[in-house]
């Protein structure tokens, strides 16, 4: 199951809920304001580092760049929409809105 998140983890509980339900190995796709989760040095970094041990974490690079996020947590895959589509080819999509 592919989990998608589009809201800032500092504003909403979507990422938190996603991590509660996601099975080890489930990929997580961050896009729109969801990509703020990949910024290094924030208060959610510990939760993200933990998530990165259990899940492949992807973030849409266009969204990351648009927000001026340059310090990206190690292990996050920056990718484009073609990669997003590729993940959807392989997985049922669970959106966390």
């Amino acid at each position, binding site marked *: 199951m592919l989990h998608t998140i589009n809201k800032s983890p500092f504003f909403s509980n979507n990422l938190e809920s996603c991590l509660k339900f996601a099975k080890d190995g489930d990929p997580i796709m961050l896009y729109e304001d969801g990509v703020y989760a990949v910024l290094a040095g924030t208060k959610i970094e510990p939760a993200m580092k933990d998530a990165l041990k259990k899940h492949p974490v992807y973030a849409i690079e266009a969204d990351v760049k648009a927000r001026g996020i340059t310090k990206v947590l190690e292990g996050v895959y920056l990718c484009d929409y073609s990669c997003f589509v590729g993940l959807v080819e392989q997985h*049922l999509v669970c959106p966390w809105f």
Partner: protein
Amino acid sequence: MAEKEKTKIMFVMRKAAHGSIYAYEGLEAILIMGAFEQEISVVFIDDGVFVLKKEQDTKPLGVKEFSKTFKTLEDYDITNIYADRESLEQRGLTADDLIIPVKVMEAGEIAKIMEVQHVLLPF
């Protein structure tokens, strides 16, 4: 002739009632889809559990009271209705506070049911 396999569609309800229309428009979608003999299920997570809270009285607010309409899901043979245990607990609720019977489950169990769906629809 082999019967065509039913499509498994799960509604994932995570938004509270009345502050936004998602829960209500989600219910409208559930009712339509329920009429078409597919395998519909509904799970209430996070603020979604509030949608089923008993004793809603929307008259003073002047908007529709639709929580009672969830009772009709039974008529559509939609009986796979789940709620996340922790979401209820964090909100001080138990299954007794809800207007319809739900299967209260742990997140891990719910995730297993999600996994076998063909489609997950968020509301």
